[in-house]
């Protein structure tokens, strides 16, 4: 043992960290398990609160009925709770948002991947992404006090005047309606769908594009006949992720949709979505009615989780297209 060997032999020296590996492994595994535990607890705790509501109403009645008449009991279920109106409102606003946002997203993604030079595409893509950073409540405020009255109202009036014979566009146009909510929702999910579709378009092999150009195709033909068709599964996955986001969006819709209590086919009549119903009536709810709102939440969760898992599986099969763009 000459002085200094101890410090010169790092392998021996590091033995003082021998328990470190166990501790490290244990700590990071526990953190990872926390993620799973939270999700499990999330499902368990809410479902437990929702079961009495589902049991007293019957699942089918709960989903399809159109009466929501909250009771005031602390311990039992005395009111009538049926989610049909809110389910309908949620689906209408989300579908409207998808119908508007999807073609626009594909067009923007094509522009960014195949038309714009990288020097132009990068800042443009970032600006579109910035739309996703704006808080939902600001979309709501802006939609309610600016966008709906100045831009959307004339469009809604025009549609109901010219196409009013179609139930979807039947007038009169009221101040809060699913049309306003759906259009604002479309703007909110646009950056999400665009970001994923853009990544998928960029991943389309250059060789296929060059081969098509070599055969004399125009740039549009390359985009429409090569890039888009081969990206179809990715576009479907991105659409489903956008749909999942649209279904769960709350505050902007709560401010715009109007709190209707009946199913109305017209886009211009008041309606209500599941998420909006929860935040709009939560504070005046008795315990049994809160449980009914939790049951609404569980329903919404079940729908979004199925759509999300399916979308993730589709997108994941395409390789490493995830992360920041989706979060």
């Amino acid at each position, binding site marked *: 043992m000459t002085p200094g060997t101890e410090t010169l032999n790092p392998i021996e020296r590091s033995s003082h960290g021998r328990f470190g590996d166990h501790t490290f492994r244990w700590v990071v*595994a526990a953190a990872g398990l926390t993620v799973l535990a939270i999700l499990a607890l*999330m499902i368990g705790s809410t479902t437990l609160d929702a079961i009495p509501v589902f049991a007293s109403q019957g699942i089918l009645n709960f989903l399809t009925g159109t009466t929501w008449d909250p009771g005031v009991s602390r311990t039992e279920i005395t009111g009538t709770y049926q989610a049909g109106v809110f389910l309908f409102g949620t689906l209408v606003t989300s579908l409207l948002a998808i119908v508007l946002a999807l073609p626009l997203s594909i067009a923007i993604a094509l522009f960014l991947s195949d038309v714009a030079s990288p020097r132009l595409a990068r800042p443009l893509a970032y600006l579109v992404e910035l739309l996703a950073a704006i808080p939902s409540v600001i979309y709501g405020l802006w939609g309610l006090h600016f966008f709906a009255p100045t831009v959307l109202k004339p469009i809604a009036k025009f549609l109901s005047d010219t196409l009013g014979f179609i139930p979807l566009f039947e007038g009169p146009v009221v101040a809060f309606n699913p049309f306003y909510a759906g259009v604002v929702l479309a703007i909110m999910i646009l950056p999400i769908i665009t970001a994923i579709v853009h990544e998928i378009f960029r991943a389309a092999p250059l060789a296929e594009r060059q081969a098509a150009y070599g055969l004399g195709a*125009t740039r549009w033909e390359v985009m429409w006949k090569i890039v888009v068709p081969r990206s179809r599964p990715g576009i479907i996955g991105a659409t489903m992720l956008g749909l999942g986001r649209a*279904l769960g969006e709350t505050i902007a819709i709560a401010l715009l949709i109007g709190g209707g209590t009946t199913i109305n086919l017209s886009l211009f009549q008041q309606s209500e979505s599941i998420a909006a119903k929860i935040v709009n009536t939560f504070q005046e709810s008795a315990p049994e009615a809160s449980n009914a709102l939790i049951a609404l939440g569980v329903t919404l969760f079940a729908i979004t989780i199925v759509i999300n898992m399916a979308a993730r599986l589709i997108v994941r099969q395409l390789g490493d297209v995830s992360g920041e763009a989706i979060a």
Partner: protein
Amino acid sequence: MIAEVSLRATGARARRRAIVNAVMHVVLGLAVLAALIPLFLIIAVTIAEGLPAMTIEFLTSTFNFSRRVQGGGYLHGLIGTLYMGGLATLMAVPIGIASALFLTEFPKSRLAGPIRFFADVMTGVPSVFVGLFVYSLLVRQIGFGTFVGALSLAIIMLPIIVRSAEEILRTVPGDLKRGSYALGARQWQPVFRVTLPSAASGLTTGVMLAVARALGETAPLVLTALAAQTIVLDFQGQGQTALPLLIFREARGAFAAGQERAWAGALELMALVLLLSILARVIATRRASQ
């Protein structure tokens, strides 16, 4: 645009293809404009409506009087937002980065796949449902307050941090770690001396984006923080407020004074959130160029 069509084809069909090509280029360009116009309108209108109401009084006072009266401000909301945002960050960042380390250091573990997949799934859980969950699990027992509000924000941040941190940690060159092992280091030692320090700026970017997302959340706070009329510093048990909550409440009110405050609050919140997002982006680009 005509030049893009084969030189040999000059018939009517070729001309038509060239025209379609040109028209579709214009359509795609218009689509980009259609996305940028709302972005511009939101920022411009919020500034135009919010700036006149954004006074020193607005930034430094609360209002605990009637909503129809002019004046007062959202100081209690700003404090609540920063208080709950800070607590949520303290809860979500260690767990999130530790989970990401688990995914990158033990990729062969049977748990890695499920954790990654369900973290992805969790990013898609509606934020209002997260609020309902915290309400059903905790609020019924311990009441509304700062902590439960922060917890719901932390749950929203967690999966975002896990996924972004994992991607960043994976880009740390393996050679750096193998160098440490060659010197006799144990597995955990280079994690703290090599991996985390060299990934620091990327991790910061991910965390900032998650914080920006959490600060703008309203729905989960409606169900957990509830509301407050004045500055609340209690950790738990006393209703708390936040900028988005105050904006939400006054946006739908019928009083012009309240709506003015809502616009000023929206400007304050937007500045906070966009500043964080843009700063995160700047850090990320600087890192990429190094």
